[in-house]
């Protein structure tokens, strides 16, 4: 090989090596940049995911509070309407008691008999309001007979002259007044409220 050929070959080989060095450097630079871009993207994604989770938790808490408040509001509204119904029912019952209709008189007698059958003993005292005393007085003998039949034993009744503060119904006590059975309208209303209020709610709020 001539010296000239050697020189040309050397130039070519150097050119190739330089190209190779620069190509590798460019690739390395590109890799570094791409890695940085990807890392930045990953970081952004991770931070966004964290933020989404944080916001979702906050939203869920807020929604739970809203739902809870809504339930409370509905419960209050239901309770209010129920209270109004009991006020109206009490008013109607008061009107019924004052009207002296046979239905009320039947109820009055039945409430006394119910009390008598629930209490043990033979001698009882009946308490009613002043208005009902007169009606009971007339029916006392009949009530005594009915109670005697039902209890299968002697029953002696006394009508107390003490005015019971009630809109209607009766309070039946044993002679010694140790045990009493309260069957006034107020007691029945209270019992209805305790036991059957859910039934009333069901009728009122059943979706149609």
């Amino acid at each position: 090989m001539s010296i000239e050929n050697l020189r040309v070959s050397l130039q070519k080989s150097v050119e190739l090596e330089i190209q190779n060095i620069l190509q590798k450097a460019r690739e390395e630079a590109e890799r570094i940049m791409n890695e940085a871009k990807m890392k930045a993207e990953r970081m952004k994604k991770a931070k966004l995911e964290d933020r989404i989770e944080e916001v979702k938790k906050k939203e869920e808490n807020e929604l739970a509070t809203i739902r809870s408040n809504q339930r409370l509001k509905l419960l209050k509204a239901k309770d209010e309407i129920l209270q109004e119904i009991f006020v109206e029912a009490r008013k109607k019952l008061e009107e019924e008691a004052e009207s002296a209709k046979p239905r009320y008189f039947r109820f009055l007698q039945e409430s006394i008999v119910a009390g008598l059958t629930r209490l043990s003993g033979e001698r009882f005292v009946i308490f009613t309001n002043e208005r009902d005393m007169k009606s009971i007085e007339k029916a006392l003998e009949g009530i005594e007979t009915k109670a005697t039949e039902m209890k299968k034993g002697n029953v002696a009744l006394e009508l107390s002259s003490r005015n019971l503060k009630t809109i209607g119904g009766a309070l039946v006590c044993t002679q010694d007044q140790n045990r009493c059975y309260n069957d006034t309208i107020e007691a029945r209303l209270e019992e209805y409220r305790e036991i059957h209020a859910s039934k009333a709610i069901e009728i009122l709020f059943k979706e149609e």
Partner: protein
Amino acid sequence: MTAKIQDLIEEERRAERKIQQAELQAIQLKKEAEEMAYSIMQENDAHMEEFLEHETASMNKEFQKKKKALERENEEKVAKLMEQADKKRLRVVRIVVETILGEGK
């Protein structure tokens, strides 16, 4: 002949210098890439909070819509239930009165 060999030796030295320059250029390229990568990360950090705030505001906007819809839906539901209950009010009063007067304990 000696002069030609001398030229060749000179050529070799030039070639070596060129290679060294290329290597220096390569180092410079890498350095610049690293600096740019650093600046990408810095910029990413700098705009992260702004980006997150924007995303949060967007999510919040959607949530407010959802919240309002839920509140409106519930108000309508309660109003409907109350309207229905109001219609049945007299019926229930009658049931209560009749139960109390008509049945023993």
